[in-house]
């Protein structure tokens, strides 16, 4: 018995050596790739430990002293916690309510167009903003909303209204931010749904027409059910990402006057870490955010798997 397992082990090992030798070229290709992921994706994860340490640049990551959950306690007890948590969720909710349905509607409307040229033109124009850098988009927005020379205020003024310095008013921030994202990404996000609609069996529409179904009935009874799996997958991703509102766009638009509604967890991490140099504390806040986000994605996925048998993995 013992001999047999040993022999098995040996033959397994020799098979492994044989396989590796056969595929040495593939391993050679894999090598730089894996090294890159270790250095730039996994090495930072090792650095996450400073969330539990009193990090000193002088001592380095490994030699800094452990302090347990101090940073997490400080964040949860601080006045910022409520603000950034609320803003993160509010901005995500705005996005789910407004930016999520928009591309679905656009895709359905585009699908109904019969003229190929018109269809292509609409798609080309609505996809365009996605490819413009966020800095340019924010620049255009900032200039348009400028109180002295922005077109929005010039027209408000012409119409007899007071000029408003939009970007300094906390009550406008979420609306402006959501509107910007709506403009930038609706066209591009609709591609997925247009593809899904193209996959629907056309004979179903023929049959429905023979049965006397009008456009509205065709859309609500055939098109929408047909793309429901896609809608659900996209919604799962969206819900899973409730806690991840990116800092890149927000830091271009917010200012201390609007922090009250604009400051989200990731922008707070950026400020306290990179601007104030509190690396350990900011890492803890970021980790807190990352863990909740991961839990959300996994639960949304599990829920959808159970309810609709569609899932990401």
């Amino acid at each position, binding site marked *: 018995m013992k001999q047999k397992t040993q022999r098995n082990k040996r033959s397994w090992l020799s098979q492994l050596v044989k396989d*590796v030798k056969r*595929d040495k*070229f*593939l*391993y050679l*290709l*894999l090598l730089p*790739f894996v090294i*890159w*992921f270790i*250095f*730039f*994706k*996994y090495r*930072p994860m090792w*650095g996450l430990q400073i969330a539990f340490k009193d990090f000193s640049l002088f001592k380095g*990551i490994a030699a800094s002293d452990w302090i347990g959950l101090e940073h997490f306690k400080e964040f949860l007890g601080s006045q910022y916690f409520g603000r950034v948590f609320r803003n993160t969720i509010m901005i995500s909710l705005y996005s789910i309510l407004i930016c999520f349905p928009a591309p679905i509607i*656009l895709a359905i409307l*585009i699908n*109904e*167009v019969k003229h190929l040229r018109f269809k292509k*033109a*609409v798609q*080309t124009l*609505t996809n365009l903003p996605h*490819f413009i*850098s*966020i*800095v*340019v988009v*924010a*620049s255009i927005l*900032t*200039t*348009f909303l400028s109180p002295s*020379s922005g*077109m929005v205020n*010039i027209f408000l*003024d012409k119409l007899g209204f007071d000029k408003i310095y939009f970007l300094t008013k906390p009550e406008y921030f979420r609306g402006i931010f959501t509107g910007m994202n709506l*403009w930038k990404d609706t*066209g*591009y996000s609709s*591609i*997925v749904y247009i*593809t*899904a609609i193209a996959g629907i069996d056309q004979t179903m529409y023929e049959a429905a027409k023979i049965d006397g179904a*009008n*456009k509205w009935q065709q859309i609500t009874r055939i098109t929408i059910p047909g793309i429901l799996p896609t809608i659900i997958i996209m919604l799962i991703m969206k819900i899973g990402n409730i806690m991840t509102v990116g*800092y*890149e766009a927000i830091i271009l638009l917010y200012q201390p006057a609007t922090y009250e509604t604009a400051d989200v967890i*990731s922008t707070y*991490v950026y400020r306290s*870490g*990179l601007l104030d140099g509190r*690396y350990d504390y*900011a*890492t803890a806040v*970021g*980790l807190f955010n990352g863990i909740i986000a*991961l839990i959300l994605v996994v639960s949304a996925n599990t829920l959808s798997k159970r309810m609709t048998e569609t899932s990401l993995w």
Partner: protein
Amino acid sequence: MSRGEKIFHIINYFILALIAAIALYPFIYVLSASLSSPDAILTGKVVLLPKNIRFDSYGVIFKDKSIWIAYGNTIFYTVVGTALCLFLTVCGAYALSKPRLRGRKIVTFFITITLWFDAGIIPFYLNLRDLGLLKHSRAAIIIAFACNAFNVILLRTFFETVPSELEEAARMDGANDLKTLTKVYLPLSKASLATVGLFYAIEKWNGYFWAMIIIRDENKIPLQVLLKKLIVENSMASDYAAALNFNASTSTETLTYATIIVSIIPILLVYPYIQKFFVKGVMIGAVKG
């Protein structure tokens, strides 16, 4: 077509035309404003077309060296960065597309994790610091962003659709492993490579955040960081004060608009030709879901 359907189509065309117009309008306004007199902008005369056409703002910008330096830097980061990205992505995607490869599953698993969990900006920054890359900001911008799990999975999915008979046939003809990859697989996947390459290129052309954090030397900053400084931080007034010289044919506003146009022209020029590749990329990604 019934009457109800006709009305539906008319309304539909109208709504879509309106949406397309909204998508396009900011660009038209910016272009028109950049060509108009400051006075026409401030009095709201510029709505769609330029008023009192002049090219003075572009003249001022073209004389400014910092824009050209930033332009050159952006082109450098985009070209070299995309080349390196494509190299690493092809290496990984090709190896991971072979079912016979031992360890394929575990490597794929660890690559996929990075899609869902990220260490965050501070550990990433400290990692660059520890690796000594902050002192070599150009290298840092190129190397630290040289791969992306999503694109690897995209390309791997494509490589998997290439029939394995082709690989066997190439081997029978005496092609070695490298030749099989470069003479069989890569030519077959031109469209997918273009898609992935364009994803990377746009990401590099448009990226600003890490360049803003990492690069301290003014002569190395890309266009987006310069734009942010000029417009978002509104430091343009002082930068151009000398050039402006209180002449009435340009103003901070017209200069801002002209700078925006100069920075997006390359994207606008290539966009119609590359659009279909992005649509393709989204579709592959969606199928994989």
